[in-house]
């Protein structure tokens, strides 16, 4: 069988063999790599769109792009960053790491794994192609509120709908695969309470995905039938209600924002103990806190819609529930800090990104608490304050978390250490730039600058100029990141099997670089071993 496969490979043109290898691979490590590169590529595309917006916002007035195109770029930036960058990056990390961390030879459903990845390039090609269509790309923001996306949406909206369907199917299949793997493929002796936290957070994230991605699929299907098949789910003329769109969308949308952060929590919980050379403080409370956050995420969607004229009672209830989320999140931040307390800390690049994650995610968490206050939200709603808030939880949160993970596990993946000096420069430049970009938005937002508008009043000019310069620097530093990753893949100091002095866990017991097939025979986890 093996010999047969090899002869086939020999006969093929090398390019064809290369394509076939990546098209048909069912190996979790190769699929993980595909996910990560797709995410990296789209990160630059969606990032360039942000650069373009910051160019337009550099000065008041309309200089470079017309407002219609601005709306399209803004929409695609949001959609790509959410569905094309953060989510595939986390799925890629899950593919690489989960089997290695639980001692499994591969994912439970390798062929489905291949299919879930290969849906994505087509989904995003379809979404990106809308830019070149007559009538332009979707222009209604990533939240695609009806009737803006139904009655008034451009013709390309239908491509957007189909693209969302494909991504949704991909995410659901990916999530099912991850859950089945975690439930059935753990090495003997690895009980649930011995699983590494990255695995735990991903298990919970995967359940969130299965619960809400079908709701997203439902809402875009309603849009499709409203647009073409005479239904009126969101059209008041036919007895529908546009506000209902927001309810269904945010029923998906709020768990979705936790989908984009929970795996980041898991990453921080892996990295901080390694470089503090201490066990993670409060492992059990971390697990329970993550579950609480996930459960609460289903009952707070209304805080995105306080200004739609909800009954006072609903506003109060949702406000309190939203603020309740600060408790389990606070438990997590406390545990990370307590893990570092009196540890023998060293500050390699992954640790720097992880600490940056904890600190700056917390800033985003606090502005979230401000937004949860109903009376205050009426002022903050749809201003740059909201933009500042969610970029603080997504950039130094989800993106820094992903970068920390890449620096942390890259030596295991490719067998070489990355350039530590360049890694540190990357961290500091990115940290300065991210704050320069997004911190001033708090001020412009509080002063009333509305989001999603390509022009602004003169008094916001200075802060916007700062944001724009910060954004370009931030974009540039990610080119440095690309260089560091490629450099590490090509050459660099050989990594040891354990890679990091304080690293513990199954993935550090296998050779570096990790061979294509690992844990063909499951490892035995000692009875007294702790996570």
């Amino acid at each position: 069988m093996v010999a047969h496969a090899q002869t086939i490979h020999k006969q093929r043109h090398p390019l064809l063999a290369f394509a076939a290898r990546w098209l048909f691979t069912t190996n979790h490590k190769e699929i993980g790599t595909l996910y990560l590169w797709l995410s990296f590529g789209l990160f630059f595309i969606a990032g360039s769109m942000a650069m373009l917006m910051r160019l337009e916002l550099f000065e008041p007035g309309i200089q470079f792009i017309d407002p219609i195109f601005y709306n399209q770029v803004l929409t695609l930036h949001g959609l790509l960053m959410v569905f094309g960058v953060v989510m595939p990056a986390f799925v890629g990390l899950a593919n690489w790491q989960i089997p290695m961390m639980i001692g499994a030879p591969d994912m439970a459903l390798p062929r489905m794994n291949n299919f879930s990845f290969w849906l994505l390039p087509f989904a995003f090609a379809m979404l990106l192609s809308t830019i070149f269509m007559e009538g332009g790309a979707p222009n209604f923001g990533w939240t695609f509120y009806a009737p803006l996306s139904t009655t008034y949406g451009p013709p390309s909206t239908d491509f957007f709908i189909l693209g969302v369907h494909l991504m949704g199917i991909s995410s659901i299949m990916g999530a099912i695969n991850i859950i089945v793997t975690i439930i059935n493929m753990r090495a003997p002796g690895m009980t649930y309470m011995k699983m590494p936290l990255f695995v735990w957070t991903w298990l919970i994230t995967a359940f969130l995905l299965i619960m809400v991605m079908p709701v997203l699929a439902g809402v875009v299907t309603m849009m499709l039938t409203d647009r073409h098949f005479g239904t009126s789910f969101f059209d008041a003329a036919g007895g529908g209600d546009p506000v209902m769109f927001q309810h269904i969308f945010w029923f998906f949308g709020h768990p979705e924002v936790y989908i984009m952060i929970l795996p980041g929590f898991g990453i921080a919980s892996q990295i901080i103990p390694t470089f503090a050379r201490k066990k993670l403080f409060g492992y059990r409370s971390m697990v329970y806190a993550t579950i609480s956050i996930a459960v609460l995420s289903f009952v707070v969607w209304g805080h995105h819609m306080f200004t739609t004229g909800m009954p006072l009672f609903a506003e109060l209830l949702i406000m309190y529930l939203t603020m309740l989320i600060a408790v389990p999140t606070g438990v997590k931040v406390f545990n990370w800090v307590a893990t570092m307390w009196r540890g023998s800390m060293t500050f390699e690049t992954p640790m720097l990104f992880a600490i940056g994650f904890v600190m700056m995610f917390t800033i985003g968490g606090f502005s979230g608490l401000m937004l949860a206050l109903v009376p205050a939200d009426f002022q903050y709603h749809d201003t740059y304050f909201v933009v500042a808030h969610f970029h603080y939880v997504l950039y130094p949160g989800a993106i820094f978390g992903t970068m920390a993970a890449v620096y942390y596990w890259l030596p295991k993946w490719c067998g070489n250490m990355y350039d530590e000096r360049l890694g540190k420069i990357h961290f500091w430049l990115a940290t300065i730039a991210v704050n320069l970009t997004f911190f001033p938005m708090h001020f412009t937002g509080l002063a009333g600058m509305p989001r999603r508008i390509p022009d602004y009043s003169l008094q916001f000019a200075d802060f916007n100029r700062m944001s724009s310069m910060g954004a370009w620097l931030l974009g540039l530093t990610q080119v440095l990141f690309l260089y560091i990753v490629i450099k590490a893949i090509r050459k660099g100091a050989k990594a040891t099997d354990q890679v990091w002095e304080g690293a513990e866990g199954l993935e550090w017991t296998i050779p570096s670089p990790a061979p294509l097939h690992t844990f063909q025979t499951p490892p035995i986890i000692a009875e007294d071993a702790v996570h």
Partner: protein
Amino acid sequence: MSRRDNKKHTLLLFALAGGMFGFAFALVPLYDVICEVTGLNGKTSTQVALAEEIEGFAVPSDRSVTIEFLARAARGMPWEFRPLEQQMRVQPGTMNVAIFHARNRARIAVIGQAVPSVSPGRAARYLKKIECFCFEQQKLPAGGEMDMAVSFIIDPDLPADISKLTLSYTMFLVSDLAAGSDHAQMASHQE
């Protein structure tokens, strides 16, 4: 750890995903029921108020509230549509009648449907409509005009802090104007 376990769990999870897809659609009737019960979003009942609902209303002599009327034609609707009176001062528990005027500016007959909304939203369920042009579709011949009535009672249980409410109607186009020539005809006249 066996293949059978994998298959079982996979099928269960796919069923969960399928169930959630169905749940998204179940949210639609659920939302309507919740709106109906709570008056959320200012949706008033589209049904005639039942006799037993309004029979026992006591009329408090010392209270009166202002009700304002708004009317607008939706996008693409070639009607002129306005209330005859901008506002009324009414006593809760008594029957009132408000008249709305509509004129079809198109060269063809047009059918419209009015959709009501009440502000503040929580007042919606205290507004009981005995008769309303919004209960059914209205038809106007080319250039035709008519007065349409809504008779209503305000429930005396209306919370004390509400002294002013707004009843607004949006008149939507029901006729299918997609048939090219009709559409063109109407558009030309509208200008």
